[in-house]
C-alpha cells in the first residue's frame, strides 16, 4: 500500500501528474460563475436549468488541452468538478428563494445567503462517507458522470472512438435543433405528420388507428414521447436497471390513470386528454414521492453494514498513514456542526416568537433531513440520471412549515439551504464517478469542491436579487405576475405552500407510497422502491425515450457483447447526452436575450 503523508492536505497537493493547477481552478471558477449566472437567469425566465458538468468538460477540453496545450485528463476533471460545483446550486435557489419575493415578505438576505452557503458546504461534506457505497460498492452508473468521463477520456480512446462520441453529439444536436420551434419559427410540427408536434410524438394517436387493437387503447392513456436524445443516451448508459423506471411509468400512466378515469374517480370536468395530468398531480406524483422516501430509507437500512465497513476502512486508512482517498471524517463532523450552527441562528433570526428549543429542533431536523434527502437524490441520479428536486423541495418545505408554526420565511429559508445541499450531493457524486473512471483522487475533488462551492449560492442569490430589484423598478413586482420572469418552479412551490398551509398536504399518499417503496426495496433488487417511485413522479414523455435507450443497450449487449457495448455504445450515448445540453444552452441564451 502506498504510504501517504501524515497530513491529509499533503495528499491533496502531492502530485507528479498535472492535476490541481491554477489554470484548471481559474477556468473552473470562471466557467462555473458564468454558467451559474446565465442558468439562474434562464431558469427564472424560461424554466431552463442544466447541471453544467458536460459543458464544462467539453469547454475544458477545448481551452486547457486545445488552446493552452497542457491540460491532462485529470486536470480537465478538476476543472469540470469546480465548474459544476459553482454552477449547480442554482437549481436549489431557483426552486425556493423567489417564493419569498413572490410573497412579498421581509427577510434578512444575510441569513439567506449564510444558510444557502452552509447548505452547499454540507451537501459536499455529507457525501464523503457515501462515496464508497454508491460508486465502489453499488457501482451506480451516474450516466452524466459516465458521459463526462467518456468526453475526458476521448483523447486516449483513439480517433475512431472520438469520432463516435462526436457523432453522438452531432446527432443529438441535429435532432434537438428542430424541437426549438419557439426560437426557429419552424420545427417537426410543420411536417404535417399526425401526432408529430414540435417537441413530441403522440404515439397513442397511431395506436388508436390500428384495427382491433386500437379500440382497446383508451383516450385517457397518454403515450406521448418527448423528442429528447439526452434521455435515450441516459437510458443506454443506465441499461437494464433503468427498465424498472419505465415499468413504474406504465403503472402510473397506463394502468392507474385509465382506471381512475373510467371508474369516475376524477371530477366530471376532467377530460380524457387531461386525465394523465390530473392523475399525476392528484395521485401518482405524491405516491411516487412517498415511494422514493420509503425505498430510500429501506435501502439505507440494508446498506448500513457496507457503509459501516466503509467508514471503518476510512478510519483505518487515516490512522495507518496510507494514502487517503477521502477527506478525513473530522471534516464532515466540522461541516455538520458549522451548518447546524448556521441553521440554528438562521431559524432563530427568522421564526417570529420562536423559542430556542424550536430553533434547535429546526436546525437538527434540517441537518438530518439534508443528509437523508441528499442520499435519496444522489441515489436517484446514480441509478437513472433523474433527480426529483422539486419533490424534495416540497417535502422539505412541508416539514419546515410544520416545525416553524406555518411561518413561510423560515420554512423557505431552510428549504433553500436543503435544496442547495441536495443538488450539490448529486453533483458531487456525478463528479466523483467521473473521477473514478479517469483515475482522479476523490480527496482532491472533495477538497476543491468544499473550498469553492460557497461561491455558487452567492452568485445565484446575487443574480436573483438584481433581477428582483430590476423587476420591482420596471414592473412593480419581483417575479411572476406582470413581469417577464415567471419563475415557474418557485411559483409552483408557492402554490403548494399555500395549499399545505391550508391543510391539503397529501400526507396519506406519502405514507402509502412510503410503505410500498419500503416493501419493494426489501425485495433485494437494488433500489427498486426508489426507481418505481421516481418513475411515478416523472412525466411519461421522458420515461419512454429513456426506456428505449435501456432496451437498445440490452439489445446491443445480446447481439454484440459487453465489450462492444461499453467501447462503442457508451461513447455514442454520451454524445447524445452532451449534445442536447450544449445546444440547449445556446437556445436558452437566444430566448432570454430576446
Amino acid at each position, binding site marked *: 500500500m502506498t504510504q501517504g503523508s501524515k497530513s491529509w492536505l499533503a495528499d491533496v497537493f502531492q502530485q507528479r*501528474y498535472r492535476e490541481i493547477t491554477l489554470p484548471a481552478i481559474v477556468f473552473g471558477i470562471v466557467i462555473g460563475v458564468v454558467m451559474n449566472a446565465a442558468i439562474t437567469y434562464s431558469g427564472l425566465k424560461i424554466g431552463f436549468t442544466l447541471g453544467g458538468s458536460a459543458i464544462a468538460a467539453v469547454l475544458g477540453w477545448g481551452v486547457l488541452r486545445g488552446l493552452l496545450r497542457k491540460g491532462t485528463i485529470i486536470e480537465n476533471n478538476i476543472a469540470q468538478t469546480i465548474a459544476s460545483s459553482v454552477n449547480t446550486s442554482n437549481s436549489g435557489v431557483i426552486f425556493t428563494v423567489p417564493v419569498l419575493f413572490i410573497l412579498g415578505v421581509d427577510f434578512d438576505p444575510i441569513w439567506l445567503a449564510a444558510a444557502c452557503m452552509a447548505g452547499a458546504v454540507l451537501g459536499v461534506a455529507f457525501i464523503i462517507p457515501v462515496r464508497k457505497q454508491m*460508486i465502489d460498492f453499488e457501482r451506480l452508473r451516474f450516466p452524466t458522470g459516465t458521459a463526462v468521463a467518456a468526453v475526458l477520456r476521448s483523447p486516449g480512446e483513439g480517433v475512431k472512438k472520438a469520432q463516435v462520441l462526436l457523432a453522438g453529439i452531432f446527432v443529438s444536436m441535429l435532432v434537438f435543433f428542430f424541437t426549438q420551434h419557439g426560437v426557429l419559427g419552424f420545427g417537426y410540427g410543420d411536417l404535417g405528420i399526425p401526432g408529430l408536434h414540435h417537441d413530441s410524438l403522440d404515439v397513442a394517436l397511431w395506436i388508436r388507428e390500428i384495427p382491433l387493437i386500437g379500440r382497446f387503447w383508451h383516450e385517457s392513456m397518454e403515450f406521448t414521447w418527448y423528442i429528447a436524445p439526452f434521455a435515450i443516451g441516459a437510458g443506454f448508459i443506465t441499461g437494464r436497471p433503468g427498465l424498472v423506471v419505465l415499468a413504474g411509468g406504465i403503472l402510473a400512466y397506463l394502468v392507474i390513470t385509465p382506471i381512475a378515469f373510467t371508474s*369516475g374517480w376524477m371530477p366530471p370536468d376532467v377530460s380524457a386528454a387531461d386525465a394523465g395530468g390530473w392523475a399525476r398531480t392528484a395521485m401518482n406524483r405524491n405516491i411516487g414521492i412517498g415511494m422514493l422516501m420509503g425505498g430510500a430509507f429501506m435501502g439505507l437500512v440494508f446498506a448500513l453494514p457496507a457503509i459501516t465497513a466503509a467508514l471503518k476502512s476510512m478510519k483505518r486508512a487515516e490512522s495507518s498513514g496510507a494514502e487517503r482517498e477521502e477527506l478525513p471524517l473530522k471534516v464532515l463532523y466540522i461541516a455538520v456542526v458549522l451548518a447546524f450552527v448556521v441553521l440554528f441562528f438562521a431559524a432563530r433570526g427568522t421564526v417570529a416568537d420562536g423559542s430556542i428549543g424550536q430553533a434547535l429542533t429546526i436546525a437538527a431536523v434540517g441537518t438530518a433531513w439534508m443528509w437523508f434527502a441528499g442520499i435519496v437524490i444522489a441515489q436517484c441520479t446514480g441509478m437513472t440520471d433523474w433527480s426529483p428536486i422539486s419533490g424534495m423541495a416540497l417535502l422539505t418545505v412541508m416539514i419546515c412549515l410544520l416545525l416553524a408554526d406555518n411561518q413561510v420565511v423560515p420554512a423557505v429559508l431552510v428549504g433553500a439551504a436543503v435544496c442547495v445541499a441536495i443538488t450539490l450531493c448529486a453533483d458531487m457524486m456525478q463528479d466523483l464517478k467521473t473521477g473514478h473512471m479517469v*483515475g482522479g483522487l476523490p480527496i482532491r475533488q472533495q477538497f476543491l469542491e468544499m473550498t469553492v462551492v460557497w461561491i455558487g449560492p452567492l452568485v445565484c442569490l446575487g443574480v436573483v436579487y438584481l433581477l428582483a430589484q430590476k423587476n420591482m423598478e420596471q*414592473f412593480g413586482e419581483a417575479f411572476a405576475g406582470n413581469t417577464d420572469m415567471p419563475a415557474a418552479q418557485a411559483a409552483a412551490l408557492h402554490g403548494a405552500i399555500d395549499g399545505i398551509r391550508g391543510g391539503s398536504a397529501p400526507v396519506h399518499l406519502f405514507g402509502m407510497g412510503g410503505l410500498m417503496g419500503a416493501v419493494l426495496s426489501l425485495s433485494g433488487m437494488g433500489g427498486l422502491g426508489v426507481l418505481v417511485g421516481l418513475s411515478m413522479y416523472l412525466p411519461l414523455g421522458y420515461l419512454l425515450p429513456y426506456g428505449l435507450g435501456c432496451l437498445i443497450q440490452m439489445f446491443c449487449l445480446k447481439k454484440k457483447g459487453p465489450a462492444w457495448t461499453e467501447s462503442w455504445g457508451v461513447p455514442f450515448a454520451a454524445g447524445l447526452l452532451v449534445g442536447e445540453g450544449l445546444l440547449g444552452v445556446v437556445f436558452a441564451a437566444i430566448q432570454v436575450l430576446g
Partner: protein
Amino acid sequence: MKKTIGKLLLTIGTVIAGIAAAGSEKASRTVDLSSAQSFAGEYLFEETEGLARGTELTAQAVTDLRAAGLDAVSVATPPRDQEALGTSDELEGRVLASDVSLGTEAKEVAVGRTVSEALLANVVASGITSVEVEGPSGTETLRVDDPKLVGRRLAEAITVQEPVTLKEGRFIDADVASRLDSAGIVEVPVKITKEFRFDRWEHRWWFLIGVGVMVAGVVVMRSGKPVISEDPSGATGLPGPAALKAMVEKMTSAVEELAGRVDSMSGEEIRGALDPLFDQYGQPFVEGREVITSTYGGATFAQIMGPFASAERRLNRSWSAAVDGYLEESQEQLKAAVPYLREASAAFPN
C-alpha cells in the same frame, strides 16, 4: 422459478396497492340510500336519474332516487370544494377559493417604471391625464390616450389608485384576515380541503391485500437463490463465488506481471495492455458482485469491493497518465494497484 414467481407477486401486489392508493383521492364516494340517515349536505357527483350533477341530496331527492330503484349513488368528496365564510368567522388557516378585491389603495409608482397596459389603466382610473416619460433626448410629456405611452419608462414618480386583489390560493394568515376586515369584506370564498378518512377510503382493504401480496412476493423472491454456476462466462447464470475469486486472482496475476515489466513499457503499450484487463476480468467480476453479497454478506463484500475499486481507480489513473504522456506516473499507479488487488483477493473467505 421462485424468483420469477416472486417478481410476479410483487408486480401484481404493487399494481393492486397502487390503484387502491390512488383510489383514496377519488373525487366521489358511494353512499347507501337504503340507510335511514339524512344525506343533507351531500351533493350528487354526476347526473343521476334526471337529477343534475351537484344536486343536494335533500329528503325529496333521496325519495326520488329510491323510487327510481337506486340503492346507492355517488356523491362528491368533499361535498363542496368551496364555501363562503364571514370575516367574523374563523378565517385564519384557510385558503382563498377565488380572487378577492380589496378595493384600491394609493401607491407611488417610482421613476423608471415601465408603463404596462395594467399600469396605464390604473393611471387613467386615477384621473391622471398626462405623464412624463423618458425620451430619446431627455423627458417628454405624453397624454394618457397616446398609443406611444405603453412601453415607455416614467420620468417622474406618480401616485395612482392601484386595485388590490388577493389571488385565489392565497393563504389567510392574521395579516390577510385583518386586511379583509379593514376592506369591509363581509363574506370570503374559501377552499374546502379534502380530508383523508381511513374509514371512508373504499379501497383500504384492497391496499392492504396489495401490500400483503407484495410482501409474499418479497418472501418468495428472497427464498429463491440466484442461479449460480461456476461458469465464469456467466452464460448459465451468474458466476459463482469461486469463479469470481478466480477472476480477481487472474486480474491480480495479470497486473503483477505487467507491473514487473512496466518500467520498460511505453505509454501506448501500457494503455494497450490495460484495456483488455477490464474487459476480460474487471467487468465480469463487477457484474457478478451480487453473488458475493448473497454468499458472504455485506461486510465481506465491502472488504472485497473496497480494495478492488481502489485498484481499479489506480489502473484508470495509469491509463490516463499513459495517454497524457506522464509515463512515470502511469508506471507508479500500475504498480500501486497490485497490493489492493491482492487485498481484494485475500478477502475472499476460504
